[in-house]
Structure formats: C-alpha cells, structure tokens
C-alpha cells in the first residue's frame, strides 16, 4: 500500500487554510474591530482621548435625524429598485424564453450593463440628467412635459438614482430567470396543454411555482446588493442635494473618511451589516430548503 503523507492525510485542513486565514485577517478581524469601535467615542479630529463609552455612540446615532432618514432611504431605494427589477426582469425573461436567431447576441447585450464600471455609468447618467443640456429633459419636452430636476431635486433624486440601478441590474434578474427557465422539465407544460389550460393559468400554476426558488434567491441577492449601493450614488450625487440621497453606506463612508468620527461610523456599519446578515441568513435557508 502507498504511504500517505501528512499533507495528503490532512488535505481538508491544509488546502483551505491559507484562504481561511486570509478571510479571518481581512474580514472577520475588521468586523470585530468595528464592533469594538462602535462602543468607543473615537474621533480622529476632535482631539478627545479614546474612551470606551458603552452604548453612548449608539444613542447618539439613533437620535440623529440624519441617520433615521438614511435608514429609511436605504429601504425605499432598495424597495423601488427591487420591485421594478423583479417585475421587468421576469417579464423580459418570459419574453425571451424561446428559440430565436440572435439569442446569444441578445444575452451579450444584456450582459453589458452588468460588467460596465458603475462610476463611469453614473457619470453618463449625470449627463442624461443634466437639467439644462440633458437628454432626459429633452425627451420630456418632446412629449410636452415640464422639465424635471432629476438628481438635483430633493424629491426626485432617489427615484432617479433607482432608475440607474434598474437599468443596470434588471438584466441580472432576466439572465438568472432565463437560466432557471431553461432547466424546467417540459412535461407539466405538455399535460397542461392537453388539458387546455390558458397562457395565464400555465404561468401562475406551473411556471411561477417552478421558478420561484430561483427568482427568490435572485431577489434576495439583488436586495443585498441594492442595500449596499455605493458607487452610483456617491459618484452621481455624493449623497446630495443636502443629504437627500444619502443611504447608510454613503453616510458611513462620509462619517469614516470625511468627518473621521470612527465611533459613530462604526455604529452605522453595525446596523448595515446586521441588515445584510439577516438577508444572507434568509438566502442560506432558501438554499438548504430547495437544495440549490
């Protein structure tokens, strides 16, 4: 018999070890450190000595109207983008779920927004949204509609930013659902047709239930990424005008790297990753449940 060395015998330890060590140092440790800092008053600009202050930073942040507004805005941005992306994405997938010439090319087109650099995308959309020279207002004027402020207006900035997210990420849902649809077995459809079911019946009784796990996972993944949206918002508005497009991520970024209030920014970060962790737990449950 061949002798197996120590490396081979413990391959299940040695193989993942470097990656695990890396993730522990670069992710787990920083997260714990953030948690620690959230109980401190640390502020790089105030000159106050570092002190642990218990939940005082939490109380300060929670009482801050700017934080509550950012929290609400994070949810409304996500809800807006996610709803539109799911409905549109599902619709497009159903439309494209057939054999046709140029299907590969169509998929390539759908991929482009997904791989395009978000900062650059944001800048291009800023040109569209420009109140005086932008195409967006020109299109409105063609229909006799009044000019809009788009990202320069307090009321319109979140929907305008969500529209960019919708443009960029709807194809993701479409491609995922298309891949899911391609894997469905044709039998239920055949028997439904024999029974004379209508298109709507087929969609709600067969397609939707069979595609549901895929769609749900795609939605949660998208929700997590939408909650974390940073590049587009920061590049297009920097959280403005005023604070009217500031989400948790953008606020935490400013607290950390513009105001250097590390204690308070840690509190915001703790809230952000609690949110993300809750959704991640949901994904894992789904994966286990449907054995995805």
């Amino acid at each position, binding site marked *: 018999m061949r002798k197996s060395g120590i490396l081979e015998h413990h391959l299940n330890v040695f193989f993942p070890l470097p990656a695990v060590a890396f*993730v522990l140092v670069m992710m787990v440790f920083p997260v714990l450190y*953030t948690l620690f800092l959230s109980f401190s008053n640390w502020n790089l600009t105030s000159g106050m000595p570092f002190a642990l202050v218990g939940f005082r930073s939490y109380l300060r942040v929670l009482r801050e109207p700017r934080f509550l507004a950012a929290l609400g805005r994070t949810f409304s941005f996500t809800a807006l983008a996610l709803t539109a992306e799911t409905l549109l994405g599902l619709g497009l997938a159903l439309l494209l779920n057939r054999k046709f010439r140029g299907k590969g090319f169509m998929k390539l087109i759908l991929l482009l927004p997904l791989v395009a*650099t978000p900062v*650059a995308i944001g800048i291009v959309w800023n040109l569209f949204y420009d109140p005086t020279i932008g195409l967006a207002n020109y299109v409105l004027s063609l229909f006799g509609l009044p000019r809009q402020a788009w990202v320069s207006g307090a009321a319109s900035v979140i929907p305008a930013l969500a529209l960019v997210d919708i443009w960029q990420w709807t194809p993701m849902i479409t491609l*995922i659902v298309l891949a*899911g649809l391609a894997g469905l077995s044709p039998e239920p459809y055949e028997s439904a047709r024999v029974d004379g079911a209508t298109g709507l019946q087929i969609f709600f009784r067969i397609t939707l239930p069979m595609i549901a796990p895929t769609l749900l996972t795609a939605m949660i993944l998208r929700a997590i990424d939408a909650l974390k949206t940073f590049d587009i918002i920061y590049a297009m508005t920097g959280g403005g005008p005023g604070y009217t497009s500031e989400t948790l991520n953008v606020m935490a970024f400013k607290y950390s*790297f513009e105001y250097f209030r590390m204690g308070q920014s840690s509190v915001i970060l703790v809230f952000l*990753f609690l949110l993300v962790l809750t959704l991640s737990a949901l994904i894992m449950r789904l994966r286990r449940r449907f054995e995805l």
Partner: protein
Amino acid sequence: MKPHPLRKLGFALILVLIAGPVLFPFVWMLASSFKTQVDIIAWPPRILFSPILENYRKVFQEQNFLKYFVNSSIVGVTSVAFSLLLGLPAAYSIARFRQKRLSVLILVARLMPGISFLMPWYIIFSRLKLMDSYTALILSHMLIALPIVVWIMSSYFETIPIEMEESAMVDGATRQRAFLSIILPVSSPGIVTAITLSFIFSWNNFMFSQVLSMEKTKTLPIAVYNFVSYAEVDWGAVMAAAVAIMAPAILLTMIFQKYVVKGLTMGAVKG
C-alpha cells in the same frame, strides 16, 4: 407549422424595444466622446455632428490615463492571481470534503458590505504605512476576487466525478498531485469564468481604491471620478475617459460571454 410573418415581425420589434434602452447609454457615451463641447451642450441634443479625437488625446496625454490603466491592471492581475492561489485549493476542499461552514464563510465575504472592512483597513494600513501602496490595494481587491473564485470553483469541482482523482491515486499519485495534474486541467472552463469575473469586479471597484490609493497607485475608476470633479463639465473628455475604462471589461465579456453568463447566474440556479 411556420410562425406567421406578422408575429415574427412583432417579436423582432420586441427585441429592438428591449435592446434599445439597454444599449442607449453606451451609444450616447461613445457618441459624446467624439463631440466638441459645443456639440454636447447644444439644445436640442445633436444626433449628427463631425467627430473629433481631441477628447481622447486630452485623456491620454494631459491626464496621463495610461498610468492609471497600468495601476488598475497591476492590482487586478495580481489580486486575481493570488486569489486563485488561495482559492482553488480551498474550493476543491469545500467541494470534496463537503465543508458547508467554509462555504458559508465565503458567501458571507461575498455579501458583506465592503465598507465594513474598509474603515478598519484604513486605520491599520495607515499605521503600517501602507496607504497608497500596491500591497494594500491588492489585499483589499483580493477580498473581492477570492469569494468569486471559491464560489465559482467549488460548484465547478462538484461536477467533476471523483473517479478522476481516484484512478490517479490508484496509480500511486498523491491526492494533491492528482488535484494539480488532473483536476485543475479539466477545470479550465471554470477557472476562465472565475478569472474573468473576478478581474472585472476588481477593475470596476471604486470604494476600496478611493480610500486606499492616492497619486502613486490611483486606479482608473478613481481617476475618472476625480476627472469629473476636477474638469467640472468637460463632458467630451469625461465621456472619453468613461469609454476607456469600460472598454477592457466589455471586451473581456464579449470574448468570454458564455462563461460570464454562467458565472453571474450560477449563484441562484442549480448546477
């Protein structure tokens, strides 16, 4: 039965209606990058104009974009290479030894908001005098690339029958030898997927580089961003910069289209 020609035409129209809005921002960006400032701020917006190359000259000569190109490439290539080095064995182990907890750890790394590591990194890298160093940037970008590599490769390795290593091991090879000389070569489609996607995401990353890089190691997304605030409204040059930064990612996507689709959709679809 052949479909009715009118239905065929209707479907073609639907395709155009879908592709149009998706492509339009790219087309407008490309067009604007060849326009003079006068053509860009013209009202109504000009569809027809005489194209110029001045904007690209500005971007590459006055703004020194080539340097940022090189920086982005160094960071992207190195972080992907190290991620493969760490990620491939880990993915193999997760796939073969069914290490569920490890795969959860990697998934969490993929889902966590980047900013929750960035603030501590900023403090630590400042103390270690590693701000504006390639080391700090590469380490941070590895946290983007590594989860993608492990995520894609662990599902890929699961599709490879275990008999492949077993037959090599019967012939006297060690398991690690079998992994290197048998499993990795047959996994090249998966590896191509992992490389393409993780490189694109590193290339596009804005937040990490915005904080950790300064003049010496500045990457393209930061250069483009600074260019906007700096050049105020030199839209033509800004659009040329946007074209320049997107071109490599789009080129890669065109070449490896099948792999990119697979990699992006596999998170939610079995197989």
